[in-house]
Every structure is written in structure tokens, then in C-alpha cells.
């Protein structure tokens, strides 16, 4: 589904990612871990298409297409979803209106009829149940005045509505209490299918107690220094990132 080869990314001349390779297949969950400032969020942003970064080398193919040929909104309509680390507020725009607009853009791209108000409401209610949102969150303006936990739940709710092929969750677990963490994990698990894939970017092992990844990768100083199965996350938790740093120094 997603194939990253020899990626080198910089911002204002400073190299953030280098010699980065990753292959994600349908049905898989990948966790990318690493200390702060190692390029995890940059990776997510580059896949989504943020233009703050310069791709110096390498390629990314998504469903066989050159990702760099696709503008941001096209990537989204083709099924790439980014769960933001810091979701922004859009005052005055209700979540319902925002999501209906987004879903209809995607449907238009896929040659489908736009959803009527009633159809949309029905789908929205279903998805609210799926991700355990029972309150009036959807009537409120996008992220405006939301607590940290509400923002992250809203991201998962949006993911449920958009049914992405490839979801990238950027530090979705940061700042969450255990209940909110469970809601997020539960959402991801319920949405998991063998025709979609998820990349979870996280600093802590905590979320991985609730979402079992197929692969764990450790990113350090812009490079993948270690990849393994789910047990790698446990090792990391036990030994800390210092262990990896020593490891990386020897590469």
C-alpha cells in the first residue's frame, strides 16, 4: 500500500529524515516509536503532504502512484488520513458541517452522489457509537474549546467517518488519561480491516497495550535504527531510549 524508499527530508537546510525505508501492507498496523525530535511527526506530515518540508531524495509510492505527484486533498480523498497531534480550532464551523463537506468531497472524487443531510446524520450516529461518543460534541465548532482528550476523540471520530485506507495517528495518545486512551485504542481496533492499514506514531509504549501492532520501528536521529515485532515496544519500555541511542551510535 505504502512504500517509502531512501527518503531524505530537510527543513531549512537541516536534515530531519535520512535513508528512511518503510513498507506498509494492507491489514497491517505499524508503530513508529522514538524519543522527541527524531522526525516522527515530520514523517507523518510528509506523507500527508505538508509543504513545510523539502524532500531531497527518495520516493514514496501509495497504491502504486507517486505520492509526490498528488496534492494534499487528493491524497486525503484517496484514503490517507492524518490524526493530528495538535488539531486546530476552526471557530464557527460545526463538526457535522465540516465532516459532511469532507465526506462529500471524497464521494465526489469517487464518483458517488453527495450525502443528503438525513443520510449523513444516520452515518454520523452509527460512527458516534462506534467510537463511544455520546455527547453533543458534533454540534460544537471544530475543536473550539475542546479539552485535549476531546480533540483526540474527535480525530478518531473523523477517521471513523472517512474510513481511510491508510491512517497515520500522530501522537494521538499524548496527553490522554486512561479512559480517553481506551476510547482511541478501541476506535482503532474496531476500524481495523484487512484492506486498510494504520501507522501509529507514539512516544510511549502505553497505547500499544491496547492496540497490538504487527511491526514496531524505532526512529532515532532521522533514521530507522531498529524494527521488530510487538515485543520490541516492551523492550523499549523496559530499557528506555538510552539503549537505542547506544545502538544507534554503533551504526
Amino acid at each position, binding site marked *: 500500500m505504502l512504500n517509502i524508499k531512501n527518503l531524505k527530508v530537510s527543513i531549512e537546510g537541516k536534515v530531519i529524515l535520512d535513508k528512511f525505508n518503510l513498507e506498509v501492507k494492507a491489514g497491517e498496523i505499524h508503530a513508529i516509536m522514538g524519543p522527541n525530535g527524531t522526525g516522527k511527526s515530520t514523517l507523518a506530515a510528509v506523507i500527508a*503532504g505538508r509543504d513545510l518540508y523539502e524532500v531531497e531524495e527518495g520516493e514514496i509510492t501509495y497504491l502504486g502512484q507517486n505520492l509526490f505527484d498528488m496534492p494534499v486533498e487528493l491524497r486525503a480523498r484517496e484514503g490517507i488520513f492524518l490524526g493530528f497531534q495538535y488539531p486546530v480550532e476552526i471557530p464557527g464551523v460545526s463538526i457535522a458541517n465540516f465532516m459532511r463537506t469532507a465526506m462529500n468531497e471524497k464521494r465526489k472524487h469517487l464518483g458517488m452522489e453527495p450525502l443528503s443531510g438525513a443520510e449523513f446524520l444516520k452515518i454520523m450516529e452509527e460512527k458516534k457509537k462506534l467510537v463511544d461518543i455520546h455527547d453533543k460534541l458534533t454540534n460544537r465548532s471544530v475543536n473550539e474549546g475542546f479539552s485535549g482528550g476531546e480533540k483526540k476523540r474527535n480525530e478518531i471520530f473523523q477517521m471513523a467517518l472517512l474510513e481511510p485506507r491508510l491512517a497515520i495517528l500522530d501522537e494521538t495518545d499524548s496527553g490522554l488519561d486512561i479512559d480517553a486512551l481506551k476510547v482511541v485504542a478501541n476506535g482503532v481496533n474496531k476500524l481495523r480491516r484487512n484492506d486498510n492499514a494504520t501507522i501509529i506514531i507514539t512516544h510511549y509504549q502505553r497505547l500499544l497495550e491496547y492496540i497490538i501492532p504487527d511491526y514496531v520501528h524505532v526512529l532515532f536521529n532521522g533514521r530507522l535504527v531498529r524494527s521488530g515485532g510487538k515485543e520490541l515496544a516492551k523492550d523499549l519500555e523496559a530499557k528506555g531510549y538510552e539503549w537505542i541511542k547506544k545502538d544507534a551510535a554503533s551504526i
Partner: protein
Amino acid sequence: MEEISNGILDEITGSDYKYGFYTDIEMDQAPKGLTEDTIRFISAKKNEPAFMLDYRLEAFRHWQTLKEPKWAHVNYPPIDYQNIIYYSAPKKGPKYQSLDEVDPELLETFEKLGIPLEEQKMLTGVAVDAVMDSVSVATTFKETLAAKGVIFCPISEALQTQPELVRKYLGSVVPHTDNYFAALNSAVFSDGSFVYIPAGVRCPMELSTYFRINAANTGQFERTLIIAEEDSYVSYMEGCTAPMRDEHQLHAAIVEIIALRNAEVKYATVQNWWPGDKQGRGGVYNFVTKRGICKEDHARISWTQVETGSAITWKYPSVVLMGDHSVGEFYSVAVTNNKQQADTGTKMIHLGKNTRSTIISKGISAGHSNNSYRGLVKATRRAVNARNFTQCDSLLLGDKCGAHTFPYIEVGNRSSVVEHEATTSKISDDQLFYCLQRGIDMEGAIGLIVNGYAREVLNKLPMEFAVEAQKLLAITLEGSVG
């Protein structure tokens, strides 16, 4: 500059008009220029009562003593008032035979606004099919209103049928001495709307200039007079979201509203005149005086406006709160793009006791435009316990536009409370990226964000107007970011 205008004044006031022009009632159009003869011509053309001609002449003589105001935060080359045609008879017959002859860019905008084909034809002046019988629509409309005693007609018609009402109220809220453009309008106004709601009547429908079939071609000096008797209610909509191209560059309208005891008048405007091209060439100058008076106790007047058009907008819909417990409201969204300039706001003049006013102003600037809010809140000594709340927000798109706020507050007593809140914000790259990442394209994203920002005001518009206004905001800002 002063010398030149003095020169013109001399020319106008002194000796005989050099073109030897005299009143010819058969002419369809007055010759260029403005003299007493022009005014006599207009008045005669409209077969006006003598008081109207006297009023016009008095206004004209006063206008000649005035200088064009320069205090607004706008720039434009000097206007040659002698190079304007002040009267031309409404055009008969269609301008075009089919839509194929109409500017494709204009049609594209209609398409985006979702305006039905037949309506597009009406707006662009294409011959309308017999299928859409606008005359019968208007007739049904008139019958419903007449049953309630509501009068809704061109002001020129009211001068024939209701001369005493017009005489009593015309100029009572905006006297001809009010300002330069008010004097000019009072001298030469072409036509406009007249609304009279009898005591105790709740007007059964939204009154819209759209339904007044001869509303087209009211020209550049429009005059509107709305009178709401005791315990009456009316909601009035002016303009339409469709882009209006107009060969007249200068527009100077006056709207007067009189609300008597316990009456309520809501006035909504969507203004989308030709703003000129991207370099700022052409475009309408819109210098408007709009004012309402809550003349008696418990009266309410609200102004809601969505201003997206015109090269220059100079407009301050105001409320004089004379009656005790009267209420004035002003809700405004003003958008400027490219080289547009807007200096707009309101005046809330509290004279009565326990009067209240609310001002919500949302300015949106893009491109190289300038957008200013100018507002006066005044509470006199008598206006005990007057209250005002003002919220004045500016949104910037890009870094070449300007937003300015000029609030004036004058309070003459100890019990009044005046609050003013102001914010300035930008559409951030983060907001745009968030929308793009959800599959919404750049134009859609700007439309969403801007409409969200303006929602408080858009909510005040009548339903069907609001939907169109939302699309209009998005279209106006197309291509302004990215």
C-alpha cells in the same frame, strides 16, 4: 483641488448653463451635468408634487455649499459631478436576446451561486420566457400585502398615491443637510422603495426588492423610506447575491426607517456590486447613508449587512434610539479582496432611557484590500441606563491587506455601560492544512473558515438569503490564498 472644485461650483452657479439646456419632458435622458434645471427636469419627469421639487432644490443649493468629505479611510480619484447623467428613463425591452450574449464569467458565478436559469436571465437583462410569469408572482404578492394594508411600492409611485406620508417622513431621519452624499441624493434621487406598515400589522412576508418588478434600473441614487406604525413588524431585504454590473460608477443611496411605539423593523442587505478588476480599475463607489429612528418607546431596529461588492464602500447604517427602552442592532460582514476598500460601521445614538444597542462587525480582508470599521456609540445625558455591546473582529487573508478599527465612544451620563471588544486574526496555514487533509480543496477550505467566522452575523439573515450569502462569501474570496 479646492480651486478646481470652486471652479466647477462657479460654473454651475454662475450665469447660464453653457449648453443652453432647457427642460424637455419628452427626453429619455437628462444631459450630463447637474444644475437646477437637471433637478426640475427629474421632478417634472416624475410628475412630482411641488413640495418634492422644493425639497430637491433646497438640497441641491445646500450641496453646492459643501465639500466632498475626505475623512474616510479610502482613496479614489476626484469625482467629476458634472460628468454624470442624473436621469435616464428605465430601459424598455431586454438588453440581450439570449444568455449566450452575456459575459461567461458572470454566468459562471451564477452557476456557483446556484441561481436558476430563468432568474439568471432576469438578472442579466435577457428576455424572459413567458413560462416564468413574474408579473403574476408580483400581483399575488401585492394582493396579500394589500389585504393587510401594507404599502410596498416605488417611492415615485408613493409620491403620487401617498404624498402626505412621504412629505411627513422623507428627510426626517436623514435630512438633506446630513452630509455631502445625502444632500446629493436628496437633490437627484431617481427612485427606490416605499414601505408602510399600518399599526398592529405584522407584515405577512419578507419584503424584498427582488419582488418589486420595476426595482431594476432604480439607478444610482436610490431612496428608500420605511415607516412602521405602532406595534407593527416588518423584515425587509435589499439587494441580491448575484453580481450586479452597473455602468454607473457613483452610487449614493439613502435609506430611512421610522419605527414608532413597539414597532420592529429588520433590514437586511446583501451588496455585491461590481468591485472592479484585480488592478482596481472600474468598480462601483458606494456612498450610502442608512439610518433608522426608534422614534417612540420600545421600538426596535436592526441592520444586517453582507457587503462583498463595490470598489469603495462608505456606509454606516445607524440607529437613533429616541424612545425609552428602544433597541438598535447592527450585524455586519464586510469582505474586501484585490484592491477593494471598505470603510463601514454604524452609529448608535442613545437618547432615550434604558435603551440598548448591539454591534457585531466582522471584517474580512484579502488581497491588497483595506477594510475599516468605523463606529460611534453615543449616550447623551438623558440616556440613563443605556447599554451597548460592541464586538469588532477582523480576519486577514494574506499579508498585503489591511484591517483598521476606528471606534468612537461618547458617554454623557454615569449610569450607561458601553463595552467594546475587538480581535484581529488570520486564517492560519494550520487551519488550511487541516481542511485539505480532510479532502477539502483550498477554495472550499477558505469558504468554510470564513463562513464559520461570520456565522454569528449570517445567522441573522433571513433563511434563503443566508444560504446564498454563504456561497457568496466563498466565491468573493476565491484565489485570495495560496
